[in-house]
């Protein structure tokens, strides 16, 4: 039996510790936000937060997580009350087919937990590991900018000093 700290609560699953976290989230815990894309760490659809950092859940054995806190998009808000990043994605209509979006939101959340005043370049570098085949990148980037503002920051020009 493996015990996990997921979205602020304790979750248990009777699985082999080598099982990828993604399978445990989806198959055992019923958390379906994170998606299976490639299973090879190439597409980012499975991205979740582990201790505030973005990780590919398809390549992280569940036994490696230990005490670290796992956050999925389910932990960021609900349909009725979306979190600020989710709200920004909705307002910018950043999703098309939507398959990559939970990974994108997790990645944006990780960036904004690190800094609410990233540069344009930092933002793009942070989002780059997640792919979107529909081509809504510009809207996704707009959503991240909007979320940064919602969190009291915004995208900064590296030449300008931040107050």
């Amino acid at each position, binding site marked *: 039996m493996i015990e996990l700290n997921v979205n602020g609560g304790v979750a248990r699953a009777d699985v082999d510790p*080598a099982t990828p976290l993604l399978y445990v989230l989806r198959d055992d815990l019923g958390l379906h936000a994170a998606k299976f894309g490639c299973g*090879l760490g190439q597409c980012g659809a499975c991205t979740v937060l582990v201790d505030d950092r973005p990780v590919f859940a398809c*390549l*992280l054995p569940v*036994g490696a997580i230990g005490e670290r806190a796992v956050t999925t998009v389910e932990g960021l808000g609900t349909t009725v009350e979306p979190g600020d990043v989710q709200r920004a994605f909705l307002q910018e209509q950043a999703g098309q087919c939507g398959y990559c979006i939970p990974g994108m939101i997790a990645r944006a959340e990780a960036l904004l937990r690190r800094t609410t005043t990233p540069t344009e370049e930092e933002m793009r570098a942070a989002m780059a590991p997640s792919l979107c085949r529909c081509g809504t990148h510009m809207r996704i980037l707009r959503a991240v900018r909007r979320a940064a503002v919602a969190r009291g920051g915004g995208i900064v020009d590296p030449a300008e000093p931040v107050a």
Partner: protein
Amino acid sequence: MRGRRLKIAGVGIAIAGAVLAILLAIAHRPAIASIERPDPRSFDPAVVARGANLARIGNCVSCHQAEGGRPYAGGYPVTTPFGTIYGSNITPDPDTGIGHWSRAAFARAMREGIGRNGRHLYPAFPYTHYAGVTDGDVDALYAFLMTRPAVRATPPDNDLIPPLGFRPLLAGWKLLFFQPAPIRVDPSQSAEWNRGRYLGETLAHCSACHSPRGLLQQEQRGAEAYAGGWSGGWYAPPINARSPAVRTWTPQRLETYFRTGLSRDHAAAAGPMGPVTYNLARADPADVRALARYYAWWMRNAPAAKVDPPLPDRRALAERQHPAGARLYEGACATCHEPGAPMVVAGRPVLPLGTPLHEDNPRDTIQIILQGLRPPVQASGPYMPAYADALTDRQIAEIVGYLKVRHGSGSAWDDLEKEVAKAREEGR
């Protein structure tokens, strides 16, 4: 008594002053008069093109471009045990670059390590290698740089431990370690080999990373030449008879590696070698072939050159010794790295062939896991994701220990958890 002490102190000060004066006299170099920025149209396009090729072979842009900055505008931090030195702006901007530099000033900087204003340059700029560059090649590089877009950019001030900010000291370093000499032609070798030697020992300055360095950062030569060194938090493995490669580096394989950043028999170019292959992929193929010929010659007596050893898979032993590593490997690595997995089918080297597992130290294996691997030339292919955020130091140490036993060779690796922490610290 007191008077005597004063006298001794006075003599001491006088001697120190005299030594300083002599040092300054030895160190003094005149400025070379500044010129108006040459008209870019005054350079022969064929010479500029030759310079472009040489700049790629020299990988100049790696140190003369900051992350996110403009090419050749400087600002890249070169870390040394004595502090950080920032690459200078070598675009033709008159105020912040080399726009005011005459051809003579540029040649002196390249071959003697002295700026136009007479200041000694730090040997992080590898003039110990460039001393052997021919007049024609200096001219071509000058023509290339003077026809680049001028970028107004001043790199940050160097951050060195005292007293190294005092540049006349560099004259002493040069007396000890800088013996400029042209590259001789070896008539017993082919023209291609000699071309490879000329480029490799001068502009490409391969030994700057692949040779160990002494206390004052001087490159070790003789038997220690190309015996492995350190660069940007990565280990540059030996490329002499001590090459740890499992398969022979033939000139053909080396050429493929230089031009694609990937050898299915060895490894993918990683760390500071990434930009090197990126630039070599865009250089004159004949020159790249010559470099491959020359460095394959350096490795001609390496163990792999005599016999391609079998690839053992000590899976059971590795599992017994590193059970936690085995479990982590199964969940985090096996989908891509076991025989028949997608990465292997896509032409990536199988783990037992990967050179890092056969090196004397675990640094490269750790950095690849921490930072991942993105082949620099064929950037659209599959890549290895970074695990720095996903796994702890201890977990990475366990995987590395498992891999070394399962597929590696050479001396055992110790203190792996500490090594992972160090690699995180030193890797960028």
